């Protein structure tokens, strides 16, 4: 029983990271129709930027926590500006929109992974120092790392920030309008392509923050972007359209993954997210919280 409680408690913390990455994927998908297969590499890059700022530039942790996501923000916005705008602006065929986008993000994913791998510094496996350090906390029989609390707190702050931003600020409302109907948004004076860039930047920054939170718990390698699969599963649970849905999905996935590890077999952990994706889509083709896909006519 204690084992299960322990698995659930630490699953919630890792689940928060998956939820953050899933948020990053869903925000981009909702507003730009792009499935971002490079999401995991943005997580990885956030972590490496963090390490760079801490170790090489000797910046304080707080400054790093602001600057590293800012760097990932710039990268995401740049990718949208340089690549996606070109792909989107080309009205070659109205229908097969998704395929070129996905190919572009897969390209970005390998570009980033490859770029990090050629840096000799990343050959050695490294670890980012945690946000809160100190001895683990005992709650009854359950042991929690301090970093787990940091993850939960930062995730909650990011979510609250997103909720305030999208719900109560002019810029956030403009972004929502752009995602619902770009043409109408343009008509009321919203700079649509700048809005898309901002969304890409914002989503990338969230992925970067997730990387900073995750890196102290995992070993850092150029392949740590594979965490994106768990985020995809979380987003699938959320139906790729509901932000609260993918938070629920992320936390559920963190817990399920740990429970599978404890009760079924540690070998099965690797396949859990894929199994969840297939199961969810089999039962509800548009995800548990999703709306039905509206196919673009003609």
């Amino acid at each position, binding site marked *: 029983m204690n084992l299960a409680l322990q698995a659930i408690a630490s699953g919630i913390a890792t689940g928060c990271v998956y939820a953050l990455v899933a948020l990053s994927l869903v925000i981009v998908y909702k507003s730009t129709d792009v499935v971002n297969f490079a999401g995991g590499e943005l997580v990885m890059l956030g972590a490496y930027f963090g390490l760079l700022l801490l170790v090489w530039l000797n910046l304080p942790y707080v400054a790093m926590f602001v600057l590293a996501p800012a760097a990932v923000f710039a990268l995401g916005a740049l990718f949208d500006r340089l690549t996606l705008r070109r792909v989107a602006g080309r009205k070659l065929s109205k*229908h*097969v929109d*998704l*395929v070129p986008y996905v190919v*572009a993000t897969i*390209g970005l994913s390998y*570009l980033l992974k490859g*770029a990090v791998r050629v840096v000799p510094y990343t050959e050695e496996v490294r670890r980012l120092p945690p946000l809160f350090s100190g001895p683990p906390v005992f709650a009854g029989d359950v042991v929690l790392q301090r970093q787990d609390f940091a993850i939960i707190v930062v995730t909650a702050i990011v979510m609250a920030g997103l909720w305030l931003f999208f719900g109560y600020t002019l810029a956030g409302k403009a972004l929502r309008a752009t995602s619902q109907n770009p043409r109408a948004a343009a008509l009321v004076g919203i700079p649509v392509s700048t809005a898309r860039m901002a969304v890409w930047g914002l989503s990338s920054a969230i992925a970067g923050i997730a990387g900073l939170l995750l890196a102290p718990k995992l070993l850092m390698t150029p392949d740590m972007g594979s965490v994106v699969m768990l985020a*995809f599963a979380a987003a699938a649970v959320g139906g790729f359209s509901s932000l609260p849905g993918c938070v629920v999905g992320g936390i559920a996935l963190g817990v399920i993954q740990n429970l599978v590890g404890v009760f079924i077999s540690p070998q099965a952990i690797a396949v859990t997210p894929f199994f969840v994706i*297939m199961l969810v889509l089999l039962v509800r083709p548009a995800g548990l919280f999703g709306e039905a896909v509206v196919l673009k006519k003609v």
Partner: protein
Amino acid sequence: MYGAPPRRQFLALGVLVIAGFVLPYLLPDYFLYIGNVLMTYLVLAIGLDLLLGWTGQFAFAHVAFYGLGIYGTALLHMRLGIPFVFGMPIAAAGAALIGLAIALPATRLRTVYLALATFAFAECAQWVFRTWDSVTRGPDGLRMSAASVFGFSVGNDREAMPVIAVITALVLAATFYLVRSKLGRAFCAIRDSEHVAAASGIDVRRVKVLAFVISAFYAGIAGGMYTLFQSYVHPDGLGVWTLVLLLTMVVVGGSGSIGGMVLGVLLIGILPEVLRAAPRGLLVWQEFAYGLILILAIMFMPRGIWGLFTKSRSA
């Protein structure tokens, strides 16, 4: 496209088959190996493109069917003694059958959901290859015995090339007819607009399922071809990386065209060999190079290299 395929296409196939029988006497082993690899990739890429480029559906499960073809053909031969001529079609049919089982639920899905579901299936399949020790030898990889084709033992590149060239030619010929058939036109109609396709009396769901099944069958055949000239298969080779390689071929060559596939496979298939021959330091740039190529190709050549030479589809 409709009517009989032009004669020059069959002429090209004739040249391919003759080359397959003659080149083993002329070229060193290494070049024969590359030739075999390229022909296998060509069958794989065409199968992937039938779904991706012709029907406009995400087909991220392709490598899984390839793996089923490899393990199926090899194990049928090693465990049950079924020779290649029967084993490969059985394995390919098995891959197609599993493709059918996947397609029936998957064709209910669209866009991102389809992409995720097929991707998830591919990862699950790779996990099974890696974990099912008693059958696939798991992470140790499977050593395959030499295949037997019509009583001849085929175990190296020199012996395999004629067989592989004949299979490739047959697959290409079948594809020439397929894309010009009613079914092939239905593929394109669905890619261009599901609504219009449905309104013209095409059973969209059925055609999509068929596209999945045919694509899986192609991948299964390619898997069988792999067993002819390779002696070892490892689950790590059946993952995302292979998918990215295939995607690069399809995108760079020009999706939705057979000529584009040939170009893409030639260019991208040779690239790792070029990188390997180059100074040692260059090989680490492989991932970066493929990523960059994918991005640049999708930015500047939306219809691939083939598209640069042919007139716009809409014109």
